[in-house]
């Protein structure tokens, strides 16, 4: 408890450290402290004992503090120690606005006991550190005003970051990307004092994509309950090898609402599809040009697995709904896209073994006048295949072991030129409007200690998937039986190396079923998947 006595303390204060929560040691008795001691449960017994003579040596002070703390701990173990927060005092913020810090301290106002106060203080501390704009956060518990017994003041001392510029490099798997990306970014913290985080990043994806973007994250824009993110980006993806087109987008994405389970984002982009090779097939030629993409995306994610890198227990469900054409202009791209993922992980109880089951599906359809005759937009379609592991990827139907990027599904012959060196069997993979994949994976520890320590384990897997066209009246020819009969499948065995950046798999895949133009091979595959 703080001593209102103006006498300076000759000894340095002893602090009680519990996860950066400091308590000031008792500096001695004061007449005012007598007013606070009404009963045994008062914090006066915690923060200072009346009528005790002031210790003169450091050792004596230390013993006194220790005695008080032991007494407090004993009381707290036997039952709740009643206290409420009178005031929250914020110190140390010169640039950061008070409301940013105050917004993170709401829990403190509703505590009723010392135990709750300590827990709430810990939570507030973590939240403030999570803002990433402070180098350190120190919370001190002090006694309230003498005229209000049973109260405490919480003093929050922050040290704003001295070096607001930081950089990092990492590997990720974004929901929009078809494969993992390596990303380098620079961050500037707290430019405006609203806890804002600005960043510029350059990302390169394994699927020949490059993205330059800049964004801002506002943890608490006034009046809004959730953080707001805004990101401007320039992205290009090269699909020439697979589908004879290149995609370039200049856009702005806004994170409107984000909570544990729900995420709503708006995206406005100018997208251009070009074919510099001039070898594209008819369907791709028809889609080349400029489009305005104005879409709203809602994601519901419920992940109760114990790990995304090596799930051994739990389940997860993700549903993503995207509506394009949210603009008064009827010429913008209009589509409806729905995808879902379901995963189960069941522990088997020996050698760390677990069985993972999963199913993913997605459908896309245009809307508006004459939508039944229109094709779906090429970049919005589903393409299966790629060097990512289906076990970890939770972004709709994307991957199948053993199939190359965009390596299966409807195809169309590319343009033919009179050139003897030209590939006569060149085809474009067009993707599909409906895609379904399913997987089963049995993972288990390798019986050597070194592997177990590093988390390296083995797995046996099987997967199946298919993709079909529904638009341009093709849905009339669709049948579930034909869809199931024409599915592709593969099995395999492999080694999994989970690292802090990504999950690497070295697999031997055997293709059970594929079709003529599918790009799949039986053999050794290396996959990389960032954390989803």
């Amino acid at each position, binding site marked *: 408890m703080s001593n209102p006595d103006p006498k300076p303390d000759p000894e340095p204060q002893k602090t009680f450290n519990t996860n950066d929560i400091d308590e000031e040691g008792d500096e001695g008795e004061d007449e005012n402290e007598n007013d606070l001691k009404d009963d045994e449960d008062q914090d006066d017994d915690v923060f200072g004992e009346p009528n005790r003579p002031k210790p003169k040596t450091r050792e004596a002070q230390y013993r006194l503090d220790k005695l008080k703390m032991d007494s407090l701990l004993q009381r707290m*173990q036997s039952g709740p120690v009643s206290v409420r927060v009178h005031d929250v005092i914020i110190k140390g913020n010169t640039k950061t606005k008070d409301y940013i810090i105050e917004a993170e301290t709401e829990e403190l106002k509703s505590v009723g006991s010392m135990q709750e106060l300590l827990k709430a203080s810990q939570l507030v501390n973590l939240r403030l550190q999570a803002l990433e704009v402070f180098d350190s956060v120190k919370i001190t518990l002090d006694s309230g005003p003498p005229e209000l017994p049973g109260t405490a003041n919480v003093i929050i001392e922050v040290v704003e970051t001295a070096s607001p510029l930081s950089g990092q490099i990492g590997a990720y798997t974004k929901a929009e990307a078809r494969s993992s990306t390596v990303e380098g970014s620079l961050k500037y913290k707290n430019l405006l004092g609203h806890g804002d985080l600005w960043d510029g990043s350059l990302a390169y994806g394994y699927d020949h994509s490059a993205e330059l973007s800049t964004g801002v994250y506002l943890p608490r824009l006034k009046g809004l309950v959730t953080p707001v993110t805004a990101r401007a980006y320039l992205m290009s993806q090269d699909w020439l090898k697979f589908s004879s087109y290149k995609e370039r987008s200049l856009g702005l994405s806004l994170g409107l609402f984000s909570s544990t389970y729900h995420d709503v984002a708006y995206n406005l982009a100018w997208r251009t599809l070009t074919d510099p090779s*001039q070898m594209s097939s008819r369907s791709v030629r028809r889609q*080349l040009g*400029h489009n305005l993409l104005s879409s709203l995306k809602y994601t519901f994610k419920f992940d109760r697995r114990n790990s995304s890198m090596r799930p051994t227990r739990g389940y997860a469900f993700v549903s993503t709904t995207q509506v394009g054409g949210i603009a008064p202009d009827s010429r913008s791209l209009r589509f409806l896209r729905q995808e879902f993922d379901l995963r189960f992980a069941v522990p088997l109880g020996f050698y760390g073994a677990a069985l993972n089951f999963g199913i993913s599906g997605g459908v896309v359809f245009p809307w508006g006048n004459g939508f039944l005759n229109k094709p779906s937009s090429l970049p919005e379609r589903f393409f299966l295949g790629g060097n990512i592991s289906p076990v970890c990827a939770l972004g709709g139907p994307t991957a199948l072991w053993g199939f190359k990027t965009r390596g299966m599904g409807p195809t169309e012959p590319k343009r033919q030129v009179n050139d003897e060196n030209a590939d006569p069997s060149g085809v474009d993979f067009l993707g599909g409007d409906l895609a379904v994949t399913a997987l089963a994976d049995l993972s288990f520890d390798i019986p050597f200690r070194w592997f177990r320590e*590093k988390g390296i384990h083995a797995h046996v897997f099987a997967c199946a998937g298919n993709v079909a066209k529904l638009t341009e009246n093709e849905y009339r020819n669709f049948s579930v039986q034909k869809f199931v009969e024409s599915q592709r499948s593969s099995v395999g065995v492999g080694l999994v190396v989970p690292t802090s950046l990504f999950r690497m798999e070295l697999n031997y895949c055997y293709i059970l079923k594929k079709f003529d133009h599918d790009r799949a091979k039986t053999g050794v595959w290396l996959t990389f998947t960032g954390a989803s």
Partner: protein
Amino acid sequence: MEQVAEREAEELTLVARKPCFDLPTACPLCLPVFIYLKLAHIPFRLSFNSIFPDSDQIPYVESGVYVAYNNENGGVIDRLKQDGIVDLDSEFESVPDWISTKAMISSWLADAMMYELWVGSDGRSAYKIYYSDLSWPIGKILFLKQVYIIKQRLGITKDNAEQRKDEIYKRAKIAYCALSTRLGEQSFLFDDRPSSLDATFLGHAFVTLHALPNTSVLRSKLLEHDNIVRYAEKLKMELIESGSSSTGAQFHSVPSSSAPRKGPSSWSSKPKSKPKKEKTEEEKTFKRRVKYFLAAQLLSVLLFLSLMGGYDSGDVELYDDDEGLALD
């Protein structure tokens, strides 16, 4: 449904910019190809791409896996000639005036059309032809970009704008006079038989007379030549307004359309020189190997760092109940 789509894909199709101003396509680059195929009585299907106004590939002609783009081999018309699909000029290329007339139409009149569409008039005609099917912000930005490009191409600056304008209109006037003299009272420019120059000039004339505003200087200069106006109106009636009978039922795929018939294997498109192709392949292989090498280096560094740094399993826990006060 699948068979209909396959049949459509095999038919000869001209992909052009959208129709407007009572023209099947109002783009001055696409309309000559349309007219050329009509003059040759080749049945074809007309399809549109209205979201790629800045593409130099459009117009293009396709049939199955065959495509003739406008930015290859001198243009679609020349490509159709080279591939033996249709050639109306075989007897005219030795005529002395042929080359000079062709040069005049493809330079002076083409420049005049570019100027009038993008700079001379208020740009509304160009906007309607090229950008009306694009969302407003995209259309506006592309339009402004194209105006800038056209000014660069025509060498127009703030200082010489008036001078260049006068020069362009003067050359257009000279060209119209020369063409009017050549045409006389004939039905076509050369030997009273249709040629690609008729197609090119008619495309220019149709756009000038119907797509440009009434206040257009170029339009008023063309209207001074009655025989050209009569020639244009008569052929418009025959080729366009007489109905879509030639774009009706009788379609053929490219190899079976007109004599001399040649299959895809014997199309005489310009072969790429072999040594250059081999060098490109070597370069590609080398670049691919370099990429794999660098990726392997990066991967091994990342693996080393992350494996030696340890592996964190499980979720990060926010609360550490073992520290501090144990209350439960």
